[in-house]
């Protein structure tokens, strides 16, 4: 390695410092005086505690004196001396004169000195882990976390060899200097590595000495995207990490959901929407498919939204067994390590401030395919009316659409045919989407602010950050507000002991007042009954008055009971939005404490504790005027025709529901760290430890009728025992009662782990990692609860070999790992019954939840990873290339049992039977295309993942192809199957398939024929290849970057109209218009004719047929970021160290798509609106 210039500052004169000190006191210990000086001047002291041994106390009475004078006064009678350098005061013993003078007798005797020193970076930040070797000897030491080192009895003219990974090494001639501050220059970056240390949540590892697959996203890259949550900020930045967030695209991505309120705390298996190196697990609802999220040191169980993106320093993704198996049984899906910002010792306070504003456009509802124009829709209603389809609804007072109401009046002779036509024609001109656009949607406005204060003194480092987000969503009356404060402090009260305490507090306040969702199922048109809107519905008239729409009950019925004194039973959607009061409050508190004691410079032990408490409550208050309250009151209102009186089993008034939940996690860990370099050649880094953790959740709910929001009072004497006749006539029901149960779940884990890395001569690295996990989740025998998982790895830095002479490739490293990760199944192996109370008898009841399986054990993922890291000369091109194989073993699969076992309605038998094989390639390339004043850097991230099912015992049934997660041995885990398509029957537009190799319309036969002559494999349901190309251009203070993302090699089912008229009105889709209507149409359309009466199988066959399969391949311009940096202006003194202003455009648009149907595969419904952000970042 080349030697480069080093800045070494020594014995800088202290004169010229203008700091004045005032001290008076009698018989003060020296340490006290030093502390006073520190307080008054901000200068820090640097000394060995041993120097106070034998030091005398001093009495002082000094005013406005210089530091030098004070120190001179203090030390005049002591055997100590001081030096002032860069606001650091070093106190040392006076060097014994004898050693400084060569002895006359023995010319060969060398004089010795005791060295005290500190290694800093060019920026003055301490460098921990730097190696100091006395040249020509085996004597070596390592700097501590604050960059300090000491060596005793060193030859006065010795040469020190100082090296540290990531920095240029240097040789320093001692020349009698005992107190050193040496600055190292950062080595030109290799591999685009920003930080050379990677964290696995247990330890900081030098990346050069690791063998595993880590993807690190440094602070600069992390801050490139603007987002209000942590994980969105890393979308598209790491190879092998796929964000499933934007709909996978299988048919059935929720077309007409019930329009219920969005749920907040989604407990599904994939709540994060991220997969690392593909999903190797067959889906069962008790297995988390999410990567493990680790916040600094401990798994983070709370809502990821509690974290303020501003408090994050960097993110590391652990992908293979070598990197992740330290996390054992929970690492099967990969691990994401989130590292928060920390303060540094002896660093003056740094203040970072960021602020941004994001504006998103209104959702473009007109581009949704899930809509049918009013004219066609009315034609369908007309035809169904002719088939008496609505008669039953009409006679039962169930809602029918305004058009059906008109048709009914016409049929009964209540209106003339001309009137009817005129009214219907008026409906045909309407479009509910205009009202949606105007009254439901709005522009999104997100504000984000963050401030971070960090710094440190000689015995303290601190960071304090606060963040505030205020988001107005795309939907009227929905808001999201978050406040997060984070503080972490580390003290060194006595030498070798470090105490750290930290707090993260967050508060979320969300309002979900608008029941009209956005995204899948946004446009809830269609449907005869219930919540759906017809395409020609009107939400408000031209003067802005909120209008009633059909909802559950017929208008004539509503009017008739209102005359009896019932409450108004009309449903006015815009009133509902205005009256809604649905808030979610969430508080989260994380407390951290740790103690670390250094036995020697290479051995320390630490104890860590963390508790996490998250409380959330969803409070829904239904105003007395809200439809929900009025409807419930009316439904139960008892009308006595003889006295014409009304009684109210459910009191008139508001209704309040609350569902508080609590999550409490406690972690405790004890760990021993060993880190030493022996004889310069042998570098050992080793940890061993044990940890226990418990996660406990408590959930319950409350319900109050007749609730007054003003007084906070409710009616308590509700009769839940007797049932009441309900309106409209006919039924009886009990009053919905509150669920009194409190649900508590407790998960406990116990783990022992160790990680050892050995590097020989910087060339060969061997790593091994092992972990033993236990949990209370597996029953049967306690022994089965503990499972060992391990990994081993080898690394070879070929470019360091003597024989390596490839000049154009100055850096080349090969590495490989092998090992196991696990996955947890959150249910027991034995027969479990759930207790409850019978409503009918009051007896305790037990319900069987799952059948027993004594053989149940942890899932295992066998990982093999091989990688090459390289850099061309001058880093023109650098990058890494990895291939891997993941074999899912003992995967838990839910076997559907024959219903005669009695378990078909339960989860079925869960067994460790399935296995899968995933193969993949991760490529990351960094290319400096132009390097000069104008810079152009291209970063390519490319991942290819293929997988197949090796073993899966579950019998596939005729219906299983309809799910996109069909597991067929030999085929990908997520594959799309479809029925072979034989075109339309030219005589009547029927869809045709194949059965026994013949063209057939026996839909029942085709659907039940699980054989290739009816069925085709259409392809992957998830992109096989994905990645991004990021181009960054910079010129002077300007920087422009654009990220293009691509997803290739997958298919999706295109949504298409129902083939039954009754299906069309409940689920209208625009391509109904292009259906087959007359012979000859089959030449121009593949959409079959629509039928009455319903033919369910005909419809099913069509929706899962080959003709609706489209290629998902696409390339999109994800975002563009443009920034201007004021901090770089030469020669101009600014009040801040750095000020950056930037603008960022997200979701720019689709560049290319493979399908010819004009469908954006990511946006089958309403596209994610484009947004633009403006922001500043500054520090001073």
């Amino acid at each position, binding site marked *: 390695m080349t030697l480069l210039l080093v800045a070494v500052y020594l014995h800088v004169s202290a004169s010229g410092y203008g700091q004045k000190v005032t001290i008076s006191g009698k018989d003060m210990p020296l340490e006290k005086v030093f502390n006073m000086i520190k307080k008054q001047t901000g200068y820090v002291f640097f000394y060995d505690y041993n120097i106070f041994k034998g030091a005398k106390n001093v009495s002082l009475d000094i005013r406005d004196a210089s530091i030098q004078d004070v120190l001179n006064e203090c030390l005049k009678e002591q055997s100590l001396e001081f030096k002032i350098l860069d606001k650091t005061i070093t106190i040392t013993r006076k060097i014994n004169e004898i050693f400084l003078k060569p002895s006359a007798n023995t010319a060969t005797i060398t004089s010795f000195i005791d060295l005290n020193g500190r290694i800093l970076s060019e920026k003055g930040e301490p460098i921990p882990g730097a190696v100091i070797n006395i040249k020509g000897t085996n004597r070596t030491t390592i700097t501590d976390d604050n960059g300090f080192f000491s060596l005793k009895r060193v030859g006065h003219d010795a040469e020190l060899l100082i090296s540290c990974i990531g920095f240029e090494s240097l040789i320093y001639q001692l020349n009698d200097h005992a107190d050193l501050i040496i600055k190292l220059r950062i080595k030109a970056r290799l591999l685009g590595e920003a930080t050379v240390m990677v964290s696995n949540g247990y330890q900081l590892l030098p990346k050069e000495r690791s063998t595993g697959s880590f993807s690190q996203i440094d602070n600069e890259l992390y801050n490139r995207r603007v987002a209000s949550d942590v994980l969105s900020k890393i979308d598209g930045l790491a190879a092998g990490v796929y964000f499933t967030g934007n709909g996978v695209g299988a048919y059935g991505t929720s077309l007409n959901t019930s329009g219920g309120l969005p749920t907040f705390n989604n407990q599904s298996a994939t709540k994060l929407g991220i997969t690392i190196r593909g999903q190797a697990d067959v889906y069962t609802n008790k297995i988390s498919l999410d990567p493990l999220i680790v916040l600094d040191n401990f798994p983070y169980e709370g809502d990821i939204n509690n974290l303020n993106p501003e408090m994050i320093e960097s993110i590391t993704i652990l992908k293979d067994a070598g990197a992740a198996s330290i996390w054992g049984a929970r690492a099967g899906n990969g691990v994401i390590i989130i590292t928060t910002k920390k303060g540094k010792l002896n660093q003056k306070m740094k203040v970072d401030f960021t602020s941004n504003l994001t504006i998103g456009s209104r959702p473009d509802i007109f581009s949704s395919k899930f809509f049918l124009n009013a004219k066609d829709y009315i034609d369908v209603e007309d035809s169904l009316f002719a*088939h008496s389809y609505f008669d039953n609804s009409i006679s039962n007072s169930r809602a029918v659409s305004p058009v059906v109401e008109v048709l009914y009046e016409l049929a009964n002779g209540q209106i003339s045919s001309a009137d009817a036509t005129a009214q219907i024609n008026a409906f045909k001109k309407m479009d509910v989407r205009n009202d949606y656009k105007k009254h439901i949607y709005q522009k999104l406005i997100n504000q984000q602010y963050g401030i971070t204060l960090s710094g440190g003194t000689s015995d303290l480092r601190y960071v304090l950050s606060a963040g505030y987000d205020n988001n107005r969503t795309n939907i009227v009356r929905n808001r999201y507000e978050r406040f997060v404060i984070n503080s972490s402090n580390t003290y060194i009260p006595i030498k070798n002991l470090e105490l750290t305490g930290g707090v993260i507090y967050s508060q979320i306040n969300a309002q979900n007042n608008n029941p009209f969702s956005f995204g899948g199922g946004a446009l809830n048109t269609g449907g005869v009954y219930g919540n759906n809107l017809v395409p020609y519905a009107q939400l408000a008239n031209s003067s802005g008055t909120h209008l009633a729409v059909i909802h559950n009950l017929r208008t004539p019925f509503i009017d008739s009971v209102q005359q009896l004194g019932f409450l108004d039973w009309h449903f006015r959607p815009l009133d509902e939005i205005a009256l809604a009061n649905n808030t979610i409050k969430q508080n989260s508190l994380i407390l951290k404490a740790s103690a670390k004691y250094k036995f020697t410079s290479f051995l320390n032990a630490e104890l860590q504790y963390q508790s996490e408490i998250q409380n959330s409550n969803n409070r829904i208050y239904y105003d007395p005027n809200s439809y929900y309250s009025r409807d419930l009151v009316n439904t139960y209102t008892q009308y006595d025709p003889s006295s014409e009186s009304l009684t109210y089993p459910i009191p008139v008034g508001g209704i309040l529901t609350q569902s508080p939940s609590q999550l409490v996690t406690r972690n405790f860990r004890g760990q021993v760290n*060993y880190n030493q370099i022996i004889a310069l050649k042998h570098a050992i880094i080793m940890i061993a430890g044990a940890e226990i953790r418990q996660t406990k959740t408590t959930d319950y709910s409350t319900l109050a009728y007749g609730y007054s929001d003003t007084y906070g009072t409710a009616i308590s004497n509700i009769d839940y025992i007797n049932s009441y006749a309900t309106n409209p006539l006919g039924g009886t029901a009990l009053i919905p009662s509150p669920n009194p149960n409190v*649900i508590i779940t*407790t998960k406990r884990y116990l783990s022992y782990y*160790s990680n050892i890395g050995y590097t020989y001569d910087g060339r060969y690295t061997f790593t091994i990692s092992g972990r033993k996990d236990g949990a209370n989740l597996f029953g049967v025998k306690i022994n089965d609860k503990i499972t060992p998982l391990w990994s081993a790895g080898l690394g070879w830095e070929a470019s360091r070999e003597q024989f390596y002479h490839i000049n154009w490739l100055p850096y080349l490293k090969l590495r490989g790992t092998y090992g196991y990760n696990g996955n947890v199944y959150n249910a027991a192996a034995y027969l479990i019954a759930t*207790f409850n109370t019978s409503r009918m*008898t009051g007896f305790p009841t037990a319900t069987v939840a799952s059948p027993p399986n004594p053989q149940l054990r942890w899932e295992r993922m066998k990982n093999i990873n091989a990688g090459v890291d390289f850099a061309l000369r001058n880093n023109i091109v650098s990058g890494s290339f990895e291939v891997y194989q993941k074999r899912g073993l003992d995967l838990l699969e839910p076997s559907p049992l024959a*219903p005669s076992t009695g378990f078909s309605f339960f989860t079925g038998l869960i067994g460790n039977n399935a296995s899968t094989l995933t193969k993949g390639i991760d490529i990351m390339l960094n290319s400096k295309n132009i390097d000069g004043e104008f810079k152009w850097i291209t970063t390519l991230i490319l991942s290819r993942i293929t997988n197949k099912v090796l073993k899966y015992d579950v019998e596939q049934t005729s219906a299983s192809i309809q799910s996109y997660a069909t597991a067929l041995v030999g085929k990908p885990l997520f594959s799309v199957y479809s029925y072979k398509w034989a075109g339309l029957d030219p005589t009547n537009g029927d869809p045709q398939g194949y059965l026994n190799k013949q063209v057939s319309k026996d839909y029942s036969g085709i659907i039940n024929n699980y054989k290739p002559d009816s069925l085709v494999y259409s392809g992957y349901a998830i992109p096989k290849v994905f990645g991004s190309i990021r181009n960054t251009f910079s010129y002077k203070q300007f920087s422009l970057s654009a990220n293009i993302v691509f997803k290739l090699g997958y298919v999706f089912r295109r949504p298409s109209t129902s083939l039954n008229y009754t299906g069309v009105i409940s689920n209208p889709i625009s391509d109904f218009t292009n259906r087959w209507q007359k012979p000859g149409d089959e030449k121009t359309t593949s959409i079959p004719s629509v039928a009455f009466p319903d033919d369910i199988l005909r419809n099913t066959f069509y929706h899962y047929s080959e003709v609706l399969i489209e290629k998902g391949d696409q390339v999109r311009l994800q975002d563009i970021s443009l920034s201007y940096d004021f901090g770089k202006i030469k020669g101009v003194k600014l009040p801040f160290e750095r000020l950056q202003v930037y603008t960022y455009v997200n979701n720019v648009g689709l560049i290319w798509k493979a399908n010819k149907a004009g469908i954006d595969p990511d946006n089958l419904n309403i596209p994610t609106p484009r947004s633009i952000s403006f922001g500043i970042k500054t520090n001073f």
Partner: protein
Amino acid sequence: MIKSFAIIIATITINISCKKQQDDFLNVKANNYDVTPKTLADFQALLDNDAIMNNSYSELGLASSDNYYVIDDNYPSLTSPEKQLYTWTSDIWQSQESAEWNYIYAIVEYSNIVLDGIANVSPDNSIKSSYNNIKGSAYFFRALAFYNLAAAFCKPYTATSAKTDLGIPLRLTSDVNAKSVRSSVQQTYDRIISDLKTAIDLLPLTPLRVTRPSSRAAQALLAKVYLSMEQYSDALQYADAVLKAKSDLLDYNDNSLVTPTATRPFPRNPDNNSEILFYANGWGYATVWPLASISHTDTTLYDSYDINDIRKVAFFYNNSDGTHRFKGTYDAYSKNNFAGLATDELYLIRAECYARAGNTSSSTSDLNALLSKRYTTGTFTALSTNNADTALHWVLVERRKELPFTGTCRWEDLRRLNKDPRFAITIKRIIAGITYTLEPNSPKYILPIPDKEIQLSGIQQNQR
């Protein structure tokens, strides 16, 4: 270095020595409401789960029966199985699951879990009575479930062919890995009878609540089973045994108990209905739900009630267009069809057995006892005959009128009585001008096994 190894070794030592603490730490229940059934209380709680054990008995037979009709306008709004059952098509399930098959086998599994589990409990004297009650209940529920399935999915019991006719899978273990195979009809009925006989010996005479089985309920069910097997003397013996001990009949004239004009005429709490021996309900189809607007009562059935017969009011709701719908369920609690056991049915069983045995006076005496509580006080003239055929005819007419929507009695009677040419009838439906017919003894009286069961366990399908 040595120090660090010492610490590592110490850690490992602690690991090993803390085995006990480690086990204790991990032995905590994951969910507070979960339990692995072990104690008698656990088993009783499984059997007291009325949502499973007393609920959702099959209505397949009702939906196929001649109790009701659907008008053309309503027909399209029926669900697929409702349509198939209404028109007796070959493929009832059309790849869909059968809720009744699934639910009833869940009852079988619960019973087996209890029977397998209780085998590990030693029945010492202090717990003898609850132990016997639990064990007897499990046998009773299993028998009831098997009988319910056999009435839908097997050929009617015919002594000459029962050994070769296909029965239902008789699951006698809770082990879900055990393979399901079809038994013979003979084995099916043998198992039902032996389970019930075991239960009779174990169960208390009267239950704490009628959701729990009792010895009398088990005898009543046995009478019903023997009747369906055309073993009339056995049926007589068990019906008689129950009625000797409990002869209660609900007097429809007593307005403190019965409100004939109400939409729910009978006592809401089944324990207050003195006829009920065991409570269960059926569930399934909008075509046969009480008060289902889509379902119109068969006019012949409705017209068969005398004007003084209170059942004409109590059982049927008058639609505005002059048609009727059924409302007279004894399950006034959940408002589903009653599928349990009651004394009225036992009177009819005994009356039929007496008539078939030529004991006309006992037969008419049972009928008179029942009908005097059904007719408006003072309007009923006691029946009397010496002709056994007349007596039998009267009984069968009254069975039709008393139990139209009780369990699947009507369907079971059609299956049984069609074998006798004197009583055989052909049922017809007309939809949009197309006529569907169900001939006596047609293979369509045996429902197909659900497709999922065939696919997963590979058992033999019924041909129809």
